[in-house]
């Protein structure tokens, strides 16, 4: 092998009698390489399925998160809210309203007396005090006696107004 090949030998070495691969070898390689291509297809499909499943799971997690979120917020707000403070504003007593009426000036004074009278009648059933207040109201504004309001006036107010009207009529006749 150590001898230099002659030019003719070189031609023979580089132009061998080449036999093509057998059909069996060709078929075997085709089957194996096609199998690799096929597995690539399945791999691709598998990746697609995994991606879709991941998207689905992400959607489910998002929905769960959104559902849970209001509860979390409610808990947080309840923790930070101060205790409820109930402020009771006591209603003004009829007597206090009457005292306010005494200090008021006409024509507002008549209205406040009427309010005090109504409060005595409806809340305390104190008809004497109610009568006193109604009289003071009609004294403060005599024109109120000329107009009877069946919707707002109670029986005592109406009776007083009628009485005042009669007194006025009688005074006119006497004169």
């Amino acid at each position: 092998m150590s001898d230099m090949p002659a030019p003719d030998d070189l031609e023979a070495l580089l132009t061998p009698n080449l036999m093509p691969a057998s059909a069996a070898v060709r078929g075997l390689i085709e089957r194996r390489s096609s199998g690799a291509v096929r597995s690539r297809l399945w791999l691709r499909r598998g990746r697609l399925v995994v991606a879709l499943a991941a998207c689905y799971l992400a959607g489910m997690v998002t929905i769960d998160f959104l559902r849970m979120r209001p509860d979390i917020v409610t808990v947080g707000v309840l923790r930070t809210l101060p205790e409820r403070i109930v402020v009771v504003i006591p209603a003004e007593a009829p007597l206090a309203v009457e005292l306010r009426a005494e200090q008021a000036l006409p024509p507002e004074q008549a209205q406040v007396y009427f309010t005090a009278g109504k409060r005595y009648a409806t809340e305390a059933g104190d008809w004497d005090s109610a009568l006193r207040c109604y009289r003071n109201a009609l004294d403060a504004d005599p024109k109120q006696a000329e107009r009877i309001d069946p919707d707002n006036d109670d029986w005592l107010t109406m009776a007083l107004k009628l009485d005042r009207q009669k007194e006025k009529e009688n005074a006119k006749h006497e004169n």
Partner: protein
Amino acid sequence: MSEADRVWRERGLREAVLAGDERAWRTWYDESFAALDAYVAWRCGGLRDLADEVLQETWLVAVRRVRDFQPDRGAFQAWLRGIAGGVIRNRLRRRQRDRTVVSLNGDVASGQPHTDKRERKERVAEVLAKLPEHYEAVLRAKYLDGKTMAEIATEWNDSLKSVESLLTRARDAFRQTYSEE
């Protein structure tokens, strides 16, 4: 087929194979098998058993690495030849290692019986694997493809004198490497 058409077609086949299209792969395989087979057999010095092993490994590597193939850089056939060249070099290296078996008493023994004819073929394969790429290309064009000097010069867009000179240098290198060791 023009170069642009080849690139367009091979790009389509590549995409189809990457998408798992078996028919596209078979088309490519059927078109390229005979040429690659002849090349591999020539590179293996006509050793059919070695050529079969190399062919199988080359196609399996190609199908696994088809994503790396860039049609605009060269033809599929050239890409396959590149893979086959690498596979042949690895196989020959392994064969050489396996062939030299050192016995326990230090004697170097041959792993399998070799005839002169087979040894000569193996030697051709080894020498071709050692030659630089441009020497291998001109020897291939001349002895495997059977082209004339003028045809090679036209195809390579080179002068006749230059191709003749390259072939002479390639033959000298082959002869030199063959006679070494």
